[in-house]
């Protein structure tokens, strides 16, 4: 039930019934996330740049588990490996684990406030980054600089923004009785 007094800038309370996310919208945002990851950055922006695709995957795994699950995450991870020209399968594995983690967290994470959600998102994104780190270090790569730990945190900071923005099309239109 929509509460007319609610600001559109806060996320929907759990008791509000949302319209289902459109498949094309999910696909579009994931495509944008992929393009965002391909964008060249430099300097401070490069250090701060979160993994947009992982963040969006996590969001849709939680909000639209009918469309996005472990399989889709794995495929997108493969695509990311190709785009990055890195080891084939590292992002695929990390994203599959991320999607599974989302599945695990899904039932409870939405009961928390946005910032508490962000903390859990930081954990999941950190796990994702740690898997990639483990794969590469086992493969003989040198340890990266400490800035490697920044993207999961900046991604978690983006979580509230993404939650509010992506829920917009799902909010129910105010009905005539509210007026």
């Amino acid at each position: 039930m929509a509460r007319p007094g609610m600001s559109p800038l806060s996320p929907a309370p759990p008791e509000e019934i949302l319209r289902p996310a459109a498949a094309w919208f999910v696909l579009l945002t994931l495509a944008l996330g992929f393009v965002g990851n391909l964008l060249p950055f430099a300097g401070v922006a490069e250090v701060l740049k979160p993994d947009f695709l992982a963040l969006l995957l996590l969001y849709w795994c939680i909000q639209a588990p009918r469309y996005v699950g472990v399989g889709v995450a794995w495929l997108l991870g493969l695509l990311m490996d190709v785009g990055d020209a890195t080891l084939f399968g590292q992002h695929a594995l990390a994203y599959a684990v991320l999607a599974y983690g989302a599945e695990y967290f899904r039932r409870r994470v939405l009961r928390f406030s946005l910032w508490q959600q962000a903390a859990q998102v930081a954990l999941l994104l950190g796990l994702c980054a740690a898997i990639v780190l483990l794969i590469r270090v086992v493969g003989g790569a040198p340890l990266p600089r400490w800035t490697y730990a920044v993207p999961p945190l900046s991604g978690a900071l983006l979580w509230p923004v993404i939650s509010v923005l992506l829920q917009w099309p799902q909010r129910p239109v105010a009905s005539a009785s509210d007026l």
Partner: protein
Amino acid sequence: MRALPVEPPAFFPRGPSPLARLAFFGLVSIALLFADTRFRYLESVRQVAAIVLYPLQRIVQMPGAALSYVGTYFSSQRELADHNAALQRRLVEQGPAVQGYARLQLESAQLKGLLALRDHYEAAATAVEVLYTGRDPFAQKVFVDKGADAAIAPGQAVIDADGVVGQVTRVFPFMAEVTLLSDKDHAVPVQVVRTGVRSVLFGSGAGRAPELRFTAPNADIAVGDVLVTSGIDGTYPPGLAVAQVASLERDTGQMFARITARPLAGVDRSTHLLVLGPAAALPPRPEEPVEVESAKKGARGKARRGG
């Protein structure tokens, strides 16, 4: 809880459970990882994917390129004039060297002809521009704007105005991947200009100075020595400036000296690079006789017993 038709009740079949899916996809990923590291099977897949992604990457880069274009468009007349003057000065400064080089090249060709020596590399080169740095935080790589379309091949050396930057490691239809000097898996055989001592310069990853490994503690190397490529690998043509020795630690307790160097080229800064022509094919490596192999083993065993 959220959207209306979120999921059917659990008693409807929904395919394998998430855990089963994770196990399946996890195993496939690990198999892919192994296949990729061991056999490099997936190079062709990567080529196709790179062709598909190329237009997308170019489109994505357009806003940034447009911004920098606008930025340079409005750079002042004064700045351009200064820049032009600096370049002119540099050109004149390099004049004698270039003129001398032409004479030396002729002389060297004649001498080589007399001695029946082979040429080391063809003096063809392709100017390229860096598109973007690789996004992989574990490797030091850049992508340049020409590839198979400009007949660039893996193994070609890449330099900038001051020295060696790296080498081409992967070629796509319209771009190429250059592994930089500082990459951990990159090594250049070098020679000290002052004394002719040979060694190999290994990259050590982002933000760390490359090292000269496997150099005896008593080798004649001093801080400030300039290192040039020795050309014995057949990849880098001889005589290209590479680095300058930055620090030197001789510890008699260690088998080798610890020597770090500072690259002369703007390895992580230069945007305009030159891909040198392919190295001339070296004669095939002679097969090692069996006696030498066993003698080596014996020597190694002795060394182990001695040490």
